[in-house]
């Protein structure tokens, strides 16, 4: 067992963890952050995407021990209280989710995409989200959501509030 300390959604957690344990399993099983989900076992679906020190990672592809000393942001920590992150607002406004299972990962991937490229074209959005699979929406409204979020974010923080 290894000892790790990880800040998740602003709270510091520490504990013993099996070296083989994946970050996503540690989040879900050890500290109860079950908002982040598992959709596959080959790192294809992206449902488990979180931010690790501000950049998106598939948390099934990171060992919990590798996150030692890092900051993790999950879908549960994206907004504080009643304030919605513009990406969350946009996904609701544009019907960018149906069953919602890919959503935690899709939203986090979109957040990272927009931090890297605040004004993406449709093609750039589609390619930027290639690592996140959705089976419900056909991606049409996800692409619209990300584009809408980009507009909200460029218009300033107050426009993103909901």
């Amino acid at each position, binding site marked *: 067992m290894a000892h790790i300390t990880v800040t998740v959604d602003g709270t510091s957690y520490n504990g013993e963890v099996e070296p083989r344990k994946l970050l996503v399993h540690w989040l*879900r099983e050890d500290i109860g952050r079950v908002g982040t989900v598992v959709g596959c076992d080959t790192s294809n679906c992206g449902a488990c995407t979180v931010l690790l020190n501000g950049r998106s990672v598939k948390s099934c592809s990171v060992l919990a021990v590798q996150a030692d000393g890092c900051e993790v942001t999950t*879908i*549960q920590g994206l907004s504080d209280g009643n304030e919605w992150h513009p990406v969350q607002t946009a996904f609701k406004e544009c*019907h960018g989710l*149906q*069953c*919602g299972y890919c959503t935690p990962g899709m939203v986090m991937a979109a957040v990272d995409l927009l931090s890297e490229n605040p004004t993406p074209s449709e093609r750039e959005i589609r390619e930027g989200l290639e690592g996140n699979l959705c089976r419900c929406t056909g991606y049409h409204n996800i692409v619209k959501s990300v584009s809408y979020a980009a507009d909200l974010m460029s218009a300033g923080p107050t426009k993103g509030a909901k």
Partner: protein
Amino acid sequence: MTAALDTGTALGKPIRRKEDAHLLHGQTNWTDNIQLPGTVHMAILRSPMAHAKITKLDVSGALKQTGVVAAYGAKELGDLNGGVPCVWPVTDDIKMPAFPALAIDKVRQVGDCVAVVLATSAAAAVDALDSIEVSYEQLPAVTDMEAALKSGSALVHDEIETNACYVYKMPCGDYAASRAKADVVLARRFINQRLIPTFMEPRSVVAAPMGMSDEITIWSSTQIPHVLRVLLALVTGIPENNIRVVAPDVGGGFGGKLQMYREEILVTNLAKKLGRPVKWTETRSENMVATHHGRDQIQDIEIAATKDGKILGLKVTLLANMGAYLQIITPGIPLLGMFMYPAIYKMDSYDFTCTGVFTNKTPTDAYRGAGRPEATYVIERIIDELAAEIGMEPMELRKKNWITHDEFPFTTVAGLTYDTGNYEAATEKALAMFDYDGLRAEQARRRASGDPVQLGIGISTYTEMCGLAPSRTLGALKYVAGGWEHCTVRALPTGKIEVVTGTSPHGQGHETAWSQIASSILGVPVEDIEVIHSDTGRAPYGMDTYGSRSLAVGGQAIKAASERLVEKARVIAAHQLECSASDLEFINGTFQVKGDPSKSQALGAVAFEAFTAHNLPAGVEPTLQAEATIDPADFSFPHGTHLAAMEVDTETGQVKLRKYVCVDDVGMQVNPMIVEGQVHGGVAQGIAQALFEGAEYDDDGNLLTASLADYLIPSAADLPSFDTGTTVTPSTTHPLGTKGVGEAGTIASTPAIINGIVDALRHLGVTDVAMPASPQTVWRTIQAAKGGAK
């Protein structure tokens, strides 16, 4: 009929979904999130072989491993090894072999359950599987349907002495006579490949005995909590009234969760036996082999027509792959397609034969569209081929044969009566949105110039039957259940409304849409309405969600129950206002005396009177609620026209979907935003069948596409945005005028894509392209047509 819709303010509006807040904040309740004290986790030893005798099975080694609580093979499980029942014995002489949860003596598919381990952590349970001693004697795998039916084939189930599960025939009219009259008889074989539903949330089940009581609660990622409860009672012997089934947040289904799975039986029985919660969540790789598959038919079709394009008759002969076992409705899936081969076309005769075939593959069952995509693919493909054969423009051939809007209601050669439709209107709109004439001109230019990238236009003018279903019809097809739906509407003392529905959403937005229906009748704001669903403890009656039935059937129940509630309330309000009930108008949630609006009582106030019961009229019982259980008068028949512009690189086989236009007529729309979303997703899944997906097996019965690294579901980068439009021809058999929409896009889009590819290549001699039309497949097809390399 449209009047009911006009009374409400919420109906027909693209109201943003109530469901989204918790989903967008990770405040979710997926089954795998449930962590009850004392839970043991189940792991399953699955067969690595498609067909083999189990020559040795010893689970005792697993029991010595850390954290292991119990381990079972079929022998140790004994009476608790319940089997999955098939509830759709389509013929009197259908062969229905036993389907035990854990394989007995023999395995019949890769992924068959052989043994289970229960341990205090999921990881410990998986680790301990390695300590089970098992050996197999491999048998020849049955993988090819035609070979399976030949004498001397290995048998999937020795005891039934054949691999033929059933033969179903439906002759309509005199096909031989039509054929004799025809100038043109065109016969083709199409392969509708095997698909894997691939909902994003893997299956998960938790069963928990409730303390000292006899009650057991089962949480399952299922589309069918109500049906599952009945089936679990029948299979496990636990009294139905002690079983509560909850489908919490469910991450997609597409038919794949319209099932009672082996694992649900095992988890339930073992929780009961061990007296503590048992949990199992599948990995994606387990999902690919153990969750039922869809499609997988060999489709022979023959069309008889005159040389000027009048269709006379159709003959369809199917081999339908059942897989290794019959899941709950496996045999019936091809029959849901059976009625739809004649589609929107008029003809004199139709002859249908389907043979269900056992193979050593994962069982098939419902996958989005369930039988109708298979039918639509074949009829829309053969129409294009017939057009080419007789030298007619493919849209003109369709127009010549389709049912015109003034011919409804129309009884088809297959015996269905389509209530309404307007194929002309949907097609005209789609053609305009698509710039059909412009693209045809571009196609001609590219052809003339010998452009290496050729353009093809794919057409699909589909209809489907959905809204499962009139119970009487299901009975005639030997389905062992009804197709009704239930709703209870309660007006609570504080003015809030509960809509208790028997539908079970997993992405369709029922909480929002059902609130809109109730709001439009009760005059209560959408936000004051709570939709209760997917829990047999809180919503005890229902037939659940599949077959595009939830709005088409469940919506009727919501409307009827809401209207009954208003009438109950009217009696109380009249008593309070000291007038006769007939003197009251109900406007925007308030009863008011006709001609004297100052005398009024809001529905919430009536509900409070019903709660206190201090002053109710004689004979009126306290509380204000009403219920309705509705059996639909008929199926509903959405239709539409889908058009795809396909660019095909004739040098590389690369296919690009340049433009996709669809105009769907799903009748009245409760929430057009949700309708559009359903169309997008449905279209994407149909395109995926055409271009990307296929469950591939080797000759030994190994699934080669057994992970998301190998089974290609499209990403955002693989698809374009879609141009969607609608026409509205209200259904006349459904009081809300609605039809279904959940499966329409999937049913329509697959043939549009393939027709487009073939259209791009027809001048090269190409008459078909196998699905999925990967670059390699397309390139080989072009080479073969040129007489080159195969």
